[in-house]
């Protein structure tokens, strides 16, 4: 390991601008002649639009244009990127998702009209004079109601609110295992709906060059090439070479900035209509009703066990909320990112999972940090705890008894995945040691003496990351490949530009990727530049989500580097008058081992661009290589989290007394950054467990529509963390990496809830849903005491 190579906690390159306030986020950009868009949104969850009168608004001060769906009739709806089939083989229902509402609004916040004016205030002033005649309809909010035969339909042309009815596994085999089981644990639970809340609100600026027909969209996106593909090919009908999508510094995403949103289309299309740039920036209250939400499952899960606590079978049935329309990745979240994870770390022989996706009059739901895997982990780690309690077993012991053993890898699960490597007992043991599991009883006693209830909870999670092998996801309904691309451009003087399709919005790619290059090429870290986020600069890319950047994007970089080194060897062989086969590349030098023949990387680079002494007949000049890498398998980060809580029974307040995380992410490039990713994920998971919930009333109004009512985790809500790792390397990528971005959010919620239920056991509480707010904990204690 060099000071800036793989394994070093290199301080981040990007911080040099961020700590000075010199980052360049989308809203920091202002274009000459720019106009401002204000989007009039539906105040109703479900209503017909009988008429829209924009005449007064069009006359407003500074108003440039007012558009409704009628004006956009020539362009397509917002496409969905994944098609899931029901268990009867029929394709999912895929109703049109119009850019601006066409005749009907389906959630509060549904865009109805757009006003474009010389200033934001003028646009908003004018929007108030738009008259919309709504015919309010009953809102479909609760999923259990939505799936009944007499429910109102969110989409009249679909006629049912069930988007698809999907299943994985053989129900008969599973039922058989249940009927022969010594024990069955059963649990009904809710995975609460969350609102991602990246602190940077979304922003989009459309621009159009009339002379060339070139469109540009500057946007807060995790994957600009995907947006270019979706908007260009499916919405506007603009070819790639006429559409640039630029995502500069992006202030957090957590999934919510993967998706293609109406506002991106509106500003790009309107810029061409008006021949002026159009800017839209969300207010936070607008983000709450226009950014895709996350989670929102209602689940029944059962676990069959033998007399010794060995798992025999798992059975799960879930209603998954899609919201009013299908967002970009929505259909795959509760299916292929959820059902396939139900083996967890365990050798459960048979599993059956069925998921009904449900349309409701709520904001669309899609991937949010973890996406499907937190939901799978939550139900699995909760039911394991229930089973342990039922059998009177130690929760660590029941896990150990059922872990897939190190000698069982590669391990084919009953739910379609093949785990490559892992050592689950190693991370469990390390986490228990770190948490002083053995000393818990003494700590519980001293809490009790102080009038507090103390509990400990374990969660052993697994995730499928490094998304994803294209042929696999293609067979499962993905409408795109999920490879990644990278170009290594060695400049004539030996500096290196890395053009990556991965996008960094907090992950620190500008540092981590440069470490990989520094290590592989043996060159100075400071001579490496990571370029991302611009379709005009980067050949191609699929972006950042699903903890894929290092495993897929990083591998593309390594493969491109290998091509550079291979070409460099040819050039060096010519310069050194040696055979190419005799050249080796080590520590930044092309050498002939056993001789003093050597050429530095920089010399070879210069020769490639000044090819005076060069095998021009056999080799092109220049030193630039591109690789597209399609992963052979998912990666499988896993670990164990141990949470200890103290509950004030008088108020129901839960205090996280300690939190210990042990993760196996395979090879770690930058430990400092990895720890930071875990910390952030943990707090999002703890936020889900204790604080956060999107609450709708029966009319489909979002009650938690601002930070006054949606509880974001604050610094004083969480402790400092103890974070550690174990390592089994991924076997199918050259770096041995697994990815670390989502683990914290996936593994932590069940650890917290298991801990709280452990604390509350002594007062008789056995059921508790997230978020475990003081109010809810107090109610649980009170009803347990009453019964």
């Amino acid at each position, binding site marked *: 390991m060099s000071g800036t190579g793989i394994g070093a906690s290199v301080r981040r390159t990007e911080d040099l601008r961020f700590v000075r306030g010199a980052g360049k986020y989308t809203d920091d950009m202002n274009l000459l002649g720019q106009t401002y868009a204000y989007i009039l949104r539906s105040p109703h969850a479900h209503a017909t639009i009988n008429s829209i009168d924009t005449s007064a608004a069009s006359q407003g001060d500074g108003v440039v244009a007012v558009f409704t769906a009628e004006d956009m009739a020539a362009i397509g709806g917002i496409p969905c990127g994944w098609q899931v089939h029901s268990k009867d083989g029929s394709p999912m229902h895929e109703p049109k998702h119009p850019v601006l509402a066409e005749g009907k609004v389906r959630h509060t916040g549904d865009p109805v009209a757009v006003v474009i004016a010389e200033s934001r205030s003028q646009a908003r002033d004018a929007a108030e004079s738009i008259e919309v005649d709504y015919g309010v309809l009953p809102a479909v909010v609760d999923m259990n109601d939505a799936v009944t035969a007499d429910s109102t339909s969110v989409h009249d042309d679909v006629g049912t609110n069930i988007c698809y009815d999907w299943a994985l596994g053989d129900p008969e085999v599973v039922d058989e295992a249940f009927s022969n089981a010594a024990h069955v644990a059963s649990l009904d639970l809710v995975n609460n709906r969350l609102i991602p809340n990246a602190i940077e609100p979304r922003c989009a600026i459309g621009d159009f060059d009339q002379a060339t027909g070139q469109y540009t969209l500057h946007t807060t996106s995790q994957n600009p090439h995907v947006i270019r593909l979706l908007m260009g090919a499916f919405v506007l009908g603009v070819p790639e070479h006429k559409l640039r999508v630029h995502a500069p510094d992006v202030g957090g995403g957590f999934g919510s900035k993967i998706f293609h949103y109406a506002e991106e289309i509106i500003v790009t299309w309107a810029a061409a209509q008006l021949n002026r740039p159009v800017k839209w920036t969300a207010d936070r209250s607008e983000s709450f009703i226009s950014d895709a939400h996350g989670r929102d499952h209602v689940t029944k899960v059962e676990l069959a066990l033998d007399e010794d606590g060995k798992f025999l079978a798992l059975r799960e049935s879930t209603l998954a909320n899609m919201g009013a329309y299908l967002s970009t990745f929505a259909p795959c979240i509760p299916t292929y990112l959820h059902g396939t994870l139900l083996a967890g770390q365990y050798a459960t022989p048979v599993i059956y999972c069925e998921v009904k996706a449900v349309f409701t009059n709520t904001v669309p739901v899609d991937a949010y940090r973890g996406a499907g895997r937190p939901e799978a982990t939550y139900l699995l780690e909760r039911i394991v705890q229930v089973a342990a309690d039922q059998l009177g077993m130690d929760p660590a012991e029941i896990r150990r008894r059922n872990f897939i053993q190190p000698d069982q890898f590669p391990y084919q699960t009953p739910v379609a995945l093949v785990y490559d490597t892992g050592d689950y007992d190693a991370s469990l043991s390390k986490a228990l040691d770190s948490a002083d599991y053995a000393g818990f009883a003494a700590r519980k006693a001293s809490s009790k003496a102080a009038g507090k209830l103390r509990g400990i909870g374990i969660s052993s999670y697994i995730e499928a990351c490094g998304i994803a092998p294209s042929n696999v996801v293609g067979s499962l309904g993905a409408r795109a490949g999920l490879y990644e691309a990278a170009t290594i451009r060695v400049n004539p003087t030996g500096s290196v530009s890395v053009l990556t399709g991965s996008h960094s919005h907090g992950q620190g790619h500008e540092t981590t990727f440069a470490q990989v290059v520094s290590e592989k090429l043996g060159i100075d870290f400071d001579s490496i530049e990571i370029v991302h986020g611009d379709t005009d600069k980067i050949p191609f890319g699929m972006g950042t989500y699903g903890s894929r950047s290092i495993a897929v994007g990083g591998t593309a970089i390594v493969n491109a580097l290998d091509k550079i080194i291979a070409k460099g060897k040819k050039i060096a062989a010519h310069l050194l008058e040696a055979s190419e086969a005799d050249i080796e590349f080590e520590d930044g030098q092309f050498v002939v081992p056993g001789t003093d023949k050597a050429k530095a990387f920089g010399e070879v680079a210069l020769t490639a661009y000044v090819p005076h002494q060069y095998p021009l007949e056999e080799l092109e000049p220049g030193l630039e290589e591109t690789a597209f890498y399609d992963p052979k398998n998912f990666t499988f980060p896993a670990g164990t989290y141990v949470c200890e809580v103290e509950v004030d029974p008088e108020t129901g307040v839960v205090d996280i007394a300690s939190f210990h995380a042990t993760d196996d992410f395979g090879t770690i490039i930058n430990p400092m950054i990895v*720890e930071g990713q875990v910390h952030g994920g943990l707090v999002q998971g703890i936020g889900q467990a204790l604080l956060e919930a999107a609450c709708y009333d029966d009319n489909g109004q979002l009650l938690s529509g601002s930070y006054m009512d949606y509880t974001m985790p604050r610094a004083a809500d969480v402790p400092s963390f103890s974070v550690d790792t174990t390592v089994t390397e991924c076997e199918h990528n050259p770096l041995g990496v697994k990815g670390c971005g989502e683990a914290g959010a996936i593994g932590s919620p069940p650890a917290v809830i298991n801990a709280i239920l452990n604390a509350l056991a002594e007062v008789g509480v056995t059921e508790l849903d997230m978020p475990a707010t003081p109010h809810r904990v107090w109610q649980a204690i009170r009803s347990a005491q009453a019964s």
Partner: protein
Amino acid sequence: MTVAISMTINGQSVSADVDARTLLVDFLRVNQRLTGTHVGCDTSQCGACVVHVNGKSVKSCTMLAAQASDAEVTTIEGVANGGELHPMQAAFRDNHGLQCGFCTPGVIMSALDLVSVNSDPSEQEIREWLEGNLCRCTGYHNIVKSIQAGARAMREA
């Protein structure tokens, strides 16, 4: 209504005629092109917009530019000494106290105000002080470490 305002921003005198309803944060970001101060919410909670007015940290999204007339305003752009980072900025980089960087300017401005009233804050005091700053990336762990390290460096400077 247009109002004439003048103030000192990062040591520079500035005068302008602005719409009375111009918020301080919009004056900084749009009129002055000081885009290091960010807007993350509309209910005065996220703290991405924190700047100093007459030495005290305030939320510039909840103050009219006119209210800051005649005041000394410091933004994140005024914190470093030319090319040299302020010790608090350096501490955030050294301790990985930021990820996406969007909340960071507000957090640093808030931290500097904390250190001005408490030169050696404990972890608990830092966490409580950060009530007005939301960060979605870091889980706060490294922000707390950064502020402790920054405060130490400022004491030793």
